């Protein structure tokens, strides 16, 4: 499984795609996260207009095995929410980096993006985690 090079990644397995305007960004979870969660059951996302804070929980995803918190990769206001995804979580399995987006946010501080990982760094982060257990 390779991760798209144009995205940034958090240690909690969220991805972020900064738009060309430098103001908007798209947020989702990685293919590896989707696979680890197995069969998905529920997704809880914040309403449009809500503020999310980098590193803080912004939602929840539940599989038949467990419930996992979703952590905001950057601070910003929710501009769009993917309601189609909430209704059909199978989309996440098919297209986690495209149709499986969760939120679009209006980014507050662009510098926060520096705290996120590039695809290579995320790959080695995953590897070190797999070696641990």
């Amino acid at each position, binding site marked *: 499984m390779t991760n798209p090079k144009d995205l940034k990644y958090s240690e909690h397995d969220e991805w972020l795609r900064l738009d060309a305007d430098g103001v908007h960004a798209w947020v989702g979870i990685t293919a590896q996260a989707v696979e*680890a969660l197995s*069969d*998905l*059951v*529920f997704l809880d996302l914040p309403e449009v207009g809500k503020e999310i804070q980098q590193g803080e929980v912004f939602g929840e995803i*539940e599989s*038949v*095995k*467990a419930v996992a918190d979703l952590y905001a990769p950057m601070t910003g206001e929710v501009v769009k929410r993917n309601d189609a995804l909430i209704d059909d*979580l199978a989309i996440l399995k098919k297209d986690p980096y495209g149709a499986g987006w969760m939120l679009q946010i209006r980014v507050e501080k662009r510098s926060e993006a520096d705290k996120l990982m590039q695809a290579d760094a995320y790959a080695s982060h995953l590897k070190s985690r*797999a070696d*641990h*257990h």
Partner: protein
Amino acid sequence: MPTPLERVIFHRAHSDKEYLRVVAADPTLDAITLDFAERSDGVGGMEQVGEVEVVRHYTRLSLLNWDIDRGLYPLGSCTMKHNPRLHERVAADPAYSQAHPSWPAAYLAQHCGIMNELAADLATLSGFDKVCLQPAAGAHGELTAVFMIRAWHLSRGDATRDVFLIPDSAHGTNPASAAMSGFRCVQVKSGPEGTLRVEDIRELLNERLAAIMITNPNTLGIYETQFSDIADAVHKAGGLVYMDGANFNAAMGVFQPGRIGADVMHFNLHKTFTTPHGGGGPGSGPIGFNATLAPFAPDSGKAESIGRVKSWFGQWGMYIRAWVYIRTLGSIGLHEVSEEAVLNANYIRRRLEGVLSMPVKSATLHESVFNDRDLPNKITTLDVAKRLIDYGFHPPTVYFPIHVHGALMIEPTETESLDELDRFCDAMRAVVAEAATDPERLKSAPHTTCVSRVDEVLAARSLDLRWVATERG
């Protein structure tokens, strides 16, 4: 050949018969029976079914089920041990089974004596000053303890402590109890040995800390060697220590939580003390605590008490079984229970080491955790668990603890014979061998049950518990 699926009982109904009149043979049910008979369509949508069909229906359903009386039930951290029949005989004695808590005190002297002795025995085993029997389940005991911890902080005028530290290996009920009591949960990561490290905890200690919840031995079956150091650090920071007693079956006569720094813990009478689990229950989750917390207990009678958490005395029927268990074995016998639980678990560990991968290699007590990392052909923990059913065993706990990928957690308990342990290990080895030679057989398992794989996503998203008459079979 799989057994045909049993139809729901409504499909067995015959509206032209009035079998329910049979019930009238019992004069105490006259009023109800008359009401039944006057309705041509049954009671509240219930159709009429003959006694013979009712008996056969539920007997057949019970045969589709699995229970500890049929064989090994090695669910990790659940301690599914045999329920000795002596306990059932004593509990069924009308002097106990028919007793009512509103009887005059003089009639209940013996019952109260038994409850006091049980509480005292649990206090001795755990090293706590006091025990409250009231909570009706392990998680209920946790919640009661968290309420007491909150009351203690508030009594000191300390209303800003809102954080509970919870290890990544904890049972989900721990953060649930803390969150339901208004606390914020902060996760503590286990170290590479599978245990908590005091240096990791120290980094999280501050004036917001209310308490830490630690399961010991933890859900990997490993004794938390730094428990006392962690407890000291937490106490110095102004917090309290809750010990989850789910795994107390490894601890009896070995260590006393109350003497190594825990302030409060719960017992599961339905795990450690052989009262029936789940539907055979009800459960019972007494708590032990030190003198500092005693005024806040549900039954302290003090103004500081959090108030009662269960009506009357709690699950009396479970107390008497646990009391008989403790009386039958004595202190030496209980110590042997823990030793043999550890021995049995380690026998399985040795027989399966090298067959299944072990994510953490540290010495384990009453249970051990394997995972699916080295299985060929993309065979998962779920496939192994399902195939084990075909071999006549209840699967172990799977995908818990959640910090281990594809966890498979095995706790045999002390009540299994060497022969049964060997049969189980042979089955596990056969299943793992099949993973290489016949993976499809695992992926489509189980093959011997009336229902094979269920659609868990559909069951979770569109749960439908109500039967509606749409067609007649």
